[in-house]
């Protein structure tokens, strides 16, 4: 049999860790990314990464971390892989430390840990206010080391278009668009891993980066891969509304005494303090986001008629603020041009993270043999709601599982990708090329970017914080209408070189497909669980919905089925943050 060939798509934390593991196993990797991998979205993560080392003598352990994660996720995650992830946490932090991530230190020169939401323990390792950036760089360096040895080839201005699937339903490679030459190329691989990150851009503006369109996940969903728990979308309560992006303002601001308010009848109304006297401004993310939505959309009390409320720290000592929150306040200063020590910050909830993603088994393989998914693009580790600082951990852990499994899978193949008939490969390449030929010929009156903004507004208003079945139906209809109008797009740019408009049209179509998965999944789930909240069905309904949603593509829209969740290790119990968490 020919030498193994492995293709990894995406060079964020998950893709890079997968790549390192494959190279360490002695095989070569072709690594694809829309942006140079060092510029991947993972750089945005500020807060840190969780691992229960118990270095502060608080009785923490991977078992407690496991319980916090399952509880925080409202029992929707399959438990065995989550347990493995929490167990692996400390070793992962130590590895990053050995790779040179400049984590903050204690006076003794040891790693320092901070507290995050959803736990009572100091469990989060951090590197200043840019933990994700520092971690990504450390992995990027290790991959560059393999690249210098000839084990990694990078294709860094290449967009994944679809998997190559043979007659037997097995994934045998991929097609990609060279974003400069605009040519479609086929690549054979015994395995393909998608590590393409989350779908924030489906919501127009979010805390996510520009390339987080979810286009790759949507493409393979349309080829038959299942999409799991799409309706679970985390909304962060405090982001800075911007014309281009909703920039995150960390929870730690409220932790240090920040208060949220808006004007009512000419007076400052501290609505969280009034609605939730016990916890005040420190209610959990989902509750705070819901309150802001109520104040702005239901009561029409947004600041200056905008979708915004105030997050205020002006009553605090400016020097203390700089000492404790310098990095965070800097972002506000830099992007709003105003000093939060002097004027209250204008914030609004923002789509932040997708718990849902491609359905995978416990070794990160999708239902298409040979096609793997890892990182934010998989659905595996966070159930109905993700705890802060657990995502970076799941990206790395997923990569450590995925890489070795890809090697093992390829070894077990009786027929290598290289032996697959040219017909299959060429047919798929042609199919993709035809899509672009058609896009280049579009001369209607619609503008692709305008359609995308419309999608974003609908998704943000109806499919984030509060979900009503009536509105979800209207949104699904709207998406169908937008798909229809997509057919009447006019292309302004006919150039055959780095044509960003043409590649965007394709991404837009894929976003619309994914938007339906999210919306229809939410519509069907008549309960409230984790980040999914329906006022009409305010309670969790384990009898009907302690189940993973699996969406399968059909030409009439997503077909949903439900799969039992493995709750064999921790018995489900009600989730309340107004009282202390009872032991599991």
């Amino acid at each position, binding site marked *: 049999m020919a030498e193994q060939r492995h293709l990894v798509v995406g060079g964020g934390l998950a893709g890079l860790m997968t790549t*390192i*593991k494959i190279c*360490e196993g002695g095989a070569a990797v072709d690594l694809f990314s829309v*942006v*140079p991998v*060092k*510029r991947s*979205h993972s*750089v*945005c993560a500020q807060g840190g990464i969780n691992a229960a080392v118990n270095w502060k003598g608080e009785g923490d352990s991977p078992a407690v971390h496991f319980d916090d994660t399952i509880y925080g996720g409202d029992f929707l995650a399959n438990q065995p892989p989550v347990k493995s992830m929490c167990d692996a946490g400390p*070793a992962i932090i*130590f*590895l990053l*430390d*050995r*790779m*040179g991530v*400049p*984590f903050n*230190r*204690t*006076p*003794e*020169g*040891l*790693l320092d840990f901070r507290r995050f939401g959803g736990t009572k323990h100091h469990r989060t390792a951090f*590197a*200043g206010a*840019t933990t994700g*950036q*520092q971690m990504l*760089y*450390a992995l990027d*360096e*290790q991959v*560059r*080391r393999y*690249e*210098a040895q000839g084990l990694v080839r990078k294709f860094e201005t290449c967009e994944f278009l679809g998997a190559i699937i043979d007659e037997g339903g097995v994934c045998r490679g991929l097609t990609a668009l060279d974003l400069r030459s605009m040519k479609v190329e086929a690549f054979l691989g015994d395995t393909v891993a998608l590590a393409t990150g989350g779908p924030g851009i489906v919501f127009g503006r979010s805390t996510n*980066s*520009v*390339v987080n369109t979810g286009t790759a996940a949507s493409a393979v969903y349309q080829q038959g891969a299942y999409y799991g728990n799409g309706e679970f979308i985390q909304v962060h309560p405090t982001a800075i509304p*911007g*014309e*281009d*992006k909703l*920039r995150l303002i960390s929870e730690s601001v409220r932790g240090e005494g920040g208060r949220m308010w808006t004007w009512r009848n000419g007076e400052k109304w501290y609505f969280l303090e009034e609605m939730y006297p016990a916890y005040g401004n420190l209610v959990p993310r989902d509750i705070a986001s819901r309150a802001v939505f109520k104040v702005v959309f239901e009561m029409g009390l947004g600041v200056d008629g905008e979708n915004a409320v105030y997050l205020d720290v002006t009553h605090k000592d400016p020097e203390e603020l700089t000492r404790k929150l310098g990095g965070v306040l800097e972002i506000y200063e*830099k*992007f*709003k*041009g105003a000093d939060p020590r002097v004027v209250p910050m204008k914030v609004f909830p923002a789509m932040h993270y997708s718990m849902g993603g491609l359905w995978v088994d416990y070794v990160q393989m999708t239902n298409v043999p040979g096609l793997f998914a890892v990182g934010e693009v998989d659905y595996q580790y966070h159930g109905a709601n993700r705890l802060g600082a657990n995502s970076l951990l799941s990206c790395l852990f997923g990569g450590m599982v995925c890489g070795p499994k890809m090697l093992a899978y390829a070894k077990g193949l009786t027929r290598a990708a290289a032996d697959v008939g040219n017909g299959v490969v060429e047919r798929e390449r042609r199919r993709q090329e035809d899509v672009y030929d058609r896009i280049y010929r579009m001369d209607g009156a619609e*503008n692709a*970017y305008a359609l995308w903004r419309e999608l974003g507004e609908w998704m943000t208003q109806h499919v984030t914080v509060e979900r009503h079945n009536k509105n979800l139906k209207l949104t699904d209809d709207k998406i169908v209408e937008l798909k229809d109008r997509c057919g009447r797009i006019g292309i*302004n*740019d006919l*150039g055959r*070189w*780095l044509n*960003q*408009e043409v590649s965007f049209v394709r991404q837009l179509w894929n976003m619309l497909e994914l938007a339906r998965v999210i919306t229809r999944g939410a519509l069907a789930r008549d309960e409230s669980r984790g980040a999914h909240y329906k006022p009409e069905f305010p309670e969790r309904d384990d009898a009907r919905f302690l189940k993973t949603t699996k969406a399968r593509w059909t030409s009439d829209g997503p077909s949903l089925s439900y799969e039992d969740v493995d709750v064999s290790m921790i018995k489900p119990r009600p989730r309340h943050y107004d009282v202390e968490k009872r032991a599991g």
Partner: protein
Amino acid sequence: MDPIRLRVKRQARPDAEPYWEEFKIPYRAGHNVHSLLMEVQLRPLRADGTRTSPVAWDANCLEEVCGSCTMFVNGQIRQACSALVDTLARPIVLEPMKKFPVVRDLAVDRSRMFESLKRVRAWVPIDGTYDLGPGPRMTEEVQQYAYALSRCMTCGCCLEACPQYNDHSAFIGPAAVGQAILKNLHPTGPLTKEERTAELMGIGGIVDCGNAQNCVVVCPKEVPLTRAIGDAGRETTKKFFRDIFRR
């Protein structure tokens, strides 16, 4: 408020002639250069109302942390995402970086920067990703210097400003010097320092630096380049003498 006038230096392909186009964008508070370019995508019309193609540019994080969107804004090298329109003189003039090949319009090819990181072996040569226990201890002081260097987002501003960095010089530039020093700082650094220092000493290494310190002034992440260049200078001198006496 008057519409915002935006002048963009465009170029269809790497080998094509550059040309200028002007756009008029309705004023709204809170724009940055990135969101202005998004408005052009929405209405790709020149100021005179004729149709054109949207402008091509690089962007990802929109928080000044990925380094993608470096360009000249009103003659200053900086990131488009953190260039707030309300603080800029008008018309706003955008040009691509000059020390890197233009791909199209404002998008450039900075792969040379990543190649430089290979040359200075900017990585820790770990034994493997297995569970080998905690890493070496590090003082807070060293961690803070390391953290400051590690914030370099390969944006290229410093190279654009450096008089010694260009097509016909082999100087790797201040950003890569910073990363070499960063790796030397790691507790395993002494084991691999020799190789890195050799690269800094070789053609195009630290000796080419005219010490104008333009680099530090334009670095958006306040990477301590002067200190790193100083450290690199000392390392190369030490190695120079070591090599002489070894002969």
